[in-house]
């Protein structure tokens, strides 16, 4: 009995926290690696419409984005409120899309080209005319795999 007691008293060194920084650093590196900072600054306001029948997009590296929407507030004085197209980091016209697709393709392996997707991130207030023009250009550029970017949720909630 006494032996047991003495052992308990003398030998409880507490859990060593020496390896705690290592564990935390490991987590830190994980999050640092997985964090994707937004590469493009948006010049257009995009609030994608809601939909329920949505699918997750795979292979983000194979996705090119086309943003359509009204210019953001601070640019409205110089660009107006008419919906504009944004490719990468600049406003663009519909005629620039074919070139955009061509440059996007150059950055990828030839084998990956059939799997490349164009994600159309358009604001819900945009008129279809602009979207149709974009789609026509994509057809001309033979980029046929597209994805209408949407948020998850039922639009009926809005009514």
């Amino acid at each position, binding site marked *: 009995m006494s032996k047991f007691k003495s052992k308990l008293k003398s030998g409880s060194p507490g859990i060593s926290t020496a390896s705690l920084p290592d564990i935390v650093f490991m987590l830190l590196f994980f*999050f640092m690696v997985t964090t994707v900072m937004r590469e493009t600054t948006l010049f257009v306001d995009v609030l994608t419409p809601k*939909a329920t029948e949505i699918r997750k997009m795979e292979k983000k590296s194979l996705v090119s984005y086309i943003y359509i929407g009204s210019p953001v507030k601070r640019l409205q004085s110089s660009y107006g409120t008419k919906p504009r197209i944004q490719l990468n980091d600049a406003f663009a016209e519909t005629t620039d899309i074919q070139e955009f697709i061509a440059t996007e393709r150059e950055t990828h392996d030839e084998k990956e080209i059939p799997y490349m997707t164009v994600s159309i991130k358009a*604001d819900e207030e945009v008129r279809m*005319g602009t979207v149709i023009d974009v789609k026509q250009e994509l057809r001309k550029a033979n980029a*046929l795999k597209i994805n209408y970017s949407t948020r998850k949720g039922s639009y009926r909630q809005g009514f």
Partner: protein
Amino acid sequence: MARSNRELQEINAGSMADIAFLLLIFFLVTTTMDVDTGIARKLPPMPEDEQIEDDSQIHARNIYVVLVNSNNQLLVEGLPMDISQLKDGAKDFIDNNGLNPELSDNPEKAIISLQNDRGTSYKTYIQVQNELTAAYNELRNTAALSEFGSRYYDLLKTQQRDIRKKYPQKISEAEPKNIGENE
């Protein structure tokens, strides 16, 4: 000199964990594991030169015409319709199997023709696309449940292909009209 020797000691690493935690929390907060979601579609290739599209082989009963005007109103098979009814309407049309002489012969022949105005809002367009996709998804799910006993997305690739063959998603988009003269 002597003094510095005497006081030479290791940097206290005790606060290292705190610093690391701080950084960790920063990255935890900023990380948005935003999974991009959306409705996937495949555009038809540009027609070859001088190729005339031949619609005459498709029987009129196998085409479900959905028109959307610039005021975001729907005209389905010649009648105005509310968007909430579109899914059921499309389901009835696709899964008719020749019962109603005005609806499709069978799901394989059924084609949904969608035409919208240049003035239609993108929101309405997505809603229509969503309802039509929902109609197909529900039909595929029902078929999957009755044939294989589980939902469509839980099936094997080959089983999914069978179901897809039975209910091919044929949504054709006609060249848009510009009645409202909208940009």
